[in-house]
């Protein structure tokens, strides 16, 4: 093979350059832009802890969906014993009524954009 050394070195330089933002973020420990979801609610506690919700709200929503629709179970007991209806519109959006500033802040940032939940599930403020 001709010029194998040069090609490999070139490839390595290319890879380092193209992944440099990732390395930069890893090294500096923070990214340039951080989404700032705004929580406006009178409630003190969510249906699960904040850490859990931050990481796993999608898992929780999937679980709620299956429990409610397929198994007919519709009541969720929060860690503090309070009961909630398993309802995206009725429970989640009831507190987080500022969907644009709350949900969308992170979703747009992480390019999850508008999950198609909203094609069917109502966003209270948007209902005439």
């Amino acid at each position, binding site marked *: 093979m001709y010029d194998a050394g040069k090609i490999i070195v070139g490839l390595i330089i290319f890879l380092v350059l193209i992944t440099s933002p990732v390395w930069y973020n890893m090294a500096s420990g923070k990214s340039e832009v951080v989404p700032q979801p705004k929580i406006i609610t009178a409630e003190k506690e969510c249906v699960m802890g904040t850490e859990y919700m931050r990481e796993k709200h999608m898992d929780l929503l999937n679980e709620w969906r299956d429990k409610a629709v397929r198994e007919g*179970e519709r009541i969720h007991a929060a860690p503090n014993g309070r009961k909630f209806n398993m309802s995206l519109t009725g429970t989640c959006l009831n507190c987080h009524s500022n969907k644009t500033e709350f949900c969308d802040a992170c979703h747009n940032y992480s390019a999850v954009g508008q999950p198609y939940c909203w094609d*069917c599930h109502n966003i209270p403020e948007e209902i005439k």
Partner: protein
Amino acid sequence: MGIDRRKFLTIAGLTAASVIGRKALGDSLSVAPESNLLPEENRLIGHRWAMVVDLRKCKEQHNCTKCIDACNAVHNIPQFDNPKDEVKWIWKEHFKEAFPNQEKEYILEGLLETPITVMCNHCDNPPCVRVCPTQATWKREDGIVMMDMHRCIGCRYCVAACPYGSRSFNWRDPRPFIKEINKDYPTRTRGVVEKCNFCAERLARGQMPACVEACEEKALIFGDLEDPDSEVRALLRENFAIRRKPNLGTNPEVYYIV
């Protein structure tokens, strides 16, 4: 026989990669802990839900549509101008279409002109369930034939399989055609099938189906067929009732008192 150098390096490399990979992915691989479930205390529980339609009472209230209006309002059912796009959960059918095999003429005199209130029969042997490739439609243990819009891929096998025309396909985006959206119930999207669900969401809250509640003449009666003391059983014991297309073997669970 020991393992050779090449094999050792492969295994070592894969192990290292998997350890690093897991670290990088963090905890996101671990399964979400089951959130706790509680039964709703006043939830209505049945073993074989069924509906009885007292046609004698419907006949007296000829053009009454209270049941239909209530259902449409609760479930965000769109009203299209074009009958081809129609979405219906409970509607009226001519006697001859509802009961094509029924001996009529003099036997059921007077009923032939009465519009018959029809809906999904929540068949005990539902062909729609058998053909659904995704189990988006399935039969619950309490007999309700349910739709899971999240899973429906819109193949419309069920539409073809249902001999009662109980299923509607959403050809168009329904939202602009809903007069007033009930925020407690989702709307649908284009490309899914829907039908009457015996108000499963209301039973879960301890309420009767919306149509039953709306009918002031009590022409619609809902109850548990397996409970011998239920109102539906009493009505069927004391009255002559017919079912739609019984010869097909679907075992419909909507009964019509004539």
